[in-house]
């Protein structure tokens, strides 16, 4: 199995291309001092090429290479696809920020690419150590991205908090890796499964603790409660333009890794970990929904809502292999909604925007009907109203958990969804049903916001995806049904 000769560059093709692209951006930046347009071309080309290579992965036979480190399977490839898409949309959203950052604009592109590559590695790795590396590559990039706009103190605060807590979680994760190794002698996920299939672990304490720590490390990344505490601050403090990418990519990579580790590596402990995940899901859904209600800043609210959504995705994961389709579908459509929502936020707050208080959105429908309409749709989708992708995603998640016997969790989740309407609808209320407060300076009209440049396209794509997969979810569901880990 650990055949050193087996080197398949296809398996890491997208990551290599992203890295090369990042290098190209840096080099071009150093030597040519080009206009952002050139960066855009390079970035676009890189992402497209990575996508094409991922396409080849999709059609390739599942295999493992690099001594069992990296695999080609549709599971990983699907994650790669989604992450590339998220990166493309996220970068497009952040383009305003990239331009404003000047020299550091190129850096931000590089960081996005590196983060994407890291998360993709998390999804495609068959080895816990490799997953840790991917996690760290991605996390470190995100820490920097969080603080990239240095003119704002909040950005620094967000970056530092994210960094300290993230490192803590990483340490826990890697401790989990170490304990797994100590308990079983294996780091490869396939070996782990083999091990558990062959031996009966009489004293599973260490192994279970290790598993718990692996879960915790990844739960931190997906911002599942109670490991979510960093998320609101990081979401709020980071530049508006890039938050969407940060949140979305992390969710995809970490959930992919989590699903792979648990389903492929620890299938024999499914009843243990699924109870644990159910607990996390319940806490996440409850905490996320309740905390979101009191928020006055849209980004913070979205952060708490993403905590709840992490809970919903965990709910989907309870179904085990059968629930994976629900996980994928949820990730695919939720990340698009999330980026879409942040695209609106960055249009309103500015790409480097510090604050996004809800009061900025009062009467937005009259000033910026397109932005308001888009945000309203994303809110509706996130709250899970039918004919949007959000409903299908929730539905699939609930069905998965119900089938796995977690009826209580489904009931909790549906009720929490209702509570969720409360704050999602409040955004719509502000935008559509209230007039902006009278401007303090007489004659000062409330600002009009517009989706500029690429953001417009991001929004259109996000709207299309949200509606399309809400009405015709079949194709995507069929696609993700095949995305099982080796």
């Amino acid at each position: 199995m650990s055949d050193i000769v087996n080197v398949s560059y296809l398996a890491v093709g997208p990551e290599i291309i992203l890295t090369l692209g990042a290098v190209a951006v840096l080099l071009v930046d150093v030597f040519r001092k080009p206009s952002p347009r050139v960066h855009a071309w390079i970035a676009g080309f890189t992402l497209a090429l990575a996508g094409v290579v991922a396409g080849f992965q999709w059609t390739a036979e599942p295999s493992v290479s690099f001594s069992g480190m990296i695999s080609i399977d549709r599971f990983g490839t699907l994650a790669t696809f989604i992450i590339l898409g998220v990166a493309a949309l996220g970068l497009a959203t952040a383009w305003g920020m990239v331009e404003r950052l000047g020299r550091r604009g190129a850096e931000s592109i590089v960081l996005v690419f590196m983060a994407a590559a890291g998360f993709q590695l998390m999804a495609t790795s068959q080895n816990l150590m490799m997953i840790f590396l991917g996690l760290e590559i991605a996390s470190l990039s995100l820490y920097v991205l969080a603080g990239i706009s240095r003119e704002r103190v909040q950005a620094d605060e967000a970056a530092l908090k994210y960094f300290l807590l993230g490192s803590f979680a990483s340490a826990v994760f890697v401790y989990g890796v170490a304990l797994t190794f100590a308990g079983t002698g294996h780091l490869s996920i396939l070996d782990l499964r083999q091990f558990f299939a062959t031996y009966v672990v009489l004293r599973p304490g260490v192994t279970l603790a290790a598993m718990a720590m692996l879960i915790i490390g990844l739960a931190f990344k997906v911002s599942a409660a109670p490991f979510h505490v960093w998320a609101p601050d990081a979401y709020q403090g980071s530049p508006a333009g890039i938050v969407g990418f940060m949140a979305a990519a992390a969710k995809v990579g970490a959930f992919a890794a989590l699903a792979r580790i648990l389903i492929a590596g620890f299938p024999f402990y499914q009843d243990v970990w699924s109870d644990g995940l159910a607990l996390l899901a319940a806490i996440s859904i409850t905490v996320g929904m309740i905390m979101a209600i009191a928020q006055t800043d849209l980004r913070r609210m979205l952060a708490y809502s993403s905590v709840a959504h992490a809970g919903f995705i965990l709910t989907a994961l309870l179904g085990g292999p059968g629930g994976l389709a629900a996980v994928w579908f949820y990730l695919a459509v939720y990340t698009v909604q999330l980026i879409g929502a942040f695209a609106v936020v960055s249009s309103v707050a500015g790409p480097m925007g510090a604050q996004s208080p809800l009061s900025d959105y009062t009467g937005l429908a009259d000033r910026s009907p397109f932005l308001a309409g888009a945000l309203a749709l994303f809110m509706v989708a996130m709250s899970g109203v039918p004919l949007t992708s959000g409903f299908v995603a929730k539905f699939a998640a609930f069905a998965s958990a119900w089938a796995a016997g977690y009826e209580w969790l489904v009931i909790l989740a549906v009720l929490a969804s209702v509570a969720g309407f409360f704050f999602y609808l409040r955004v719509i209320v502000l935008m559509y049903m209230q007039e902006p407060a009278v401007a303090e300076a007489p004659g000062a009209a409330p600002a009009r916001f517009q989706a500029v440049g690429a953001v417009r396209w991001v929004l259109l794509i996000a709207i299309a995806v949200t509606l399309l997969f809400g009405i015709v979810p079949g194709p995507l569901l069929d696609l993700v049904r095949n995305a099982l880990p080796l």
Partner: protein
Amino acid sequence: MDFPILSVLVLLPFAAAVIVGLLPSRRKELYLPVGIALSFLPLAASIWLFAVFKTGEGAFQFVEKTTWYAPWGVSWHLGVDGISLLMLVLTTILVPISLAASTTISKRPKQFVVFNLLLEGGLLGVFLSLDLFMFFVFFEVILVPMYFIIGVWGSDRRIYAAIKFFIFTAFGSALMLAGIIAMALMYGRQTGQISFDYLDMLNLQMSYQTELWLFAAFALAFAIKVPMFPLHTWLPDAHVEAPTAGSVMLAGVLLKMGTYGLLRFNLMLFPRATVDAVPILAVLAVIGIVYGAAVAIVQPDLKKLVAYSSVSHLGFIVLGIFALTSQGLQGGVVQMINHGLSTGALFLLVGMIYERRHTKKIADFGGLANVMPLYAGFFLFTALASIGLPGLNGFIGEFLVLIGSFVTLKWFAIVAASGVVLAAVYLLWAYERVFTGPVHNPANEKLLDLNAREITMLGVLAAFMLLLGLYPKIALDRIAPSTELVLDRIEATTTYEVPYPGRIADIVGVSAHE
């Protein structure tokens, strides 16, 4: 049936919404006329359906089934029976009327028309769905346009009302969603293929305990939508704050989703639980009848009065349904239509006077019959229909319900009958205070009577009220076979026996039982 008439019917309003949405934004004056014109298409389709519908057959007709997503067993499954047929006609009639009543909407007129059309599409979907997933999709998606209609174009406390409406009703359907999922998975365990299909669900085997839980989940969703006492408090707020078109659709059709759901799903899918739950629902229905009426009496706001009257009237429908007799069920269904027509018309009327005077307070009026005789005439006519005056539609439903429910629910029916008295009290007292006596408020002296547009709208509704009152057979002939099927199912699956009092063969006029 080759031509997918039902799909076309459901999709027409959505298409119309898109067309209106694409109208150029500088031609503001076009939105409403185009919207009204387009809303005649579904109307024409539903009338055509009504005409070609085979009477005497209780089963679903014009059935269409296309896979939506096969692995989940979700399909685009449409069908119409006598019960849904009438709801279609009612919906498609009320939409053009409620749009025509919205000429004073000046704020974001395009969105207004679009949301109304989306609402119509959703409603038609609800009534035609033969797939639980699909049903839920439409059932839930309706909240959004209605939320906007109330929240954007409503009056002062519109936001409170809109959110309350949305969350309250969404709360109910949340548990129903869990129930639907549970049923589909249960079906999957039993047959190997998950299915949300309504007709498949009829073959679902389940334990009595499960059936009770599922019944409760569905009943809660529908009871909130109806709304039944004590889950009704969203209704007065929503009705009062909504613009006229919103109130008309809300009272006219949206509430019927609840009673329709009870009939279509609770009775058919959970017959054993239904039979055992009758006392609970009957008690709540009867309380609703009396309570709604009692509360309506003292309302100082005309619209709120009509809103509470809905609580009372809907109680009759629920009572009729859970009486589990031919007469009660037929009455319940007819009453759904009747209430849609008469309460819809009442809200139109309140809207008309509100447009003129910008108040709905009863105390602000008085003697209006002097200055607006036509308006007074229509109001009285509609009020009488609502009271259940024989010869008008309301009577048919109430009479059938009361008589039908007495057979099985003696004391409930007796208490419910007092609602008939109270209805006269609140509506006629309101009429007296608003329309009779001299005009004592100078603001009312120069009011204009109805114009041609308003007369047309009300005239159409009035004509239907009269038609259904004088010749309800056109409705009953279509309803009865379908309601008989409901009873047949309950009889087949439980020990309950539908009583046919008298049992003298030649006098029970229901053809299905010959």
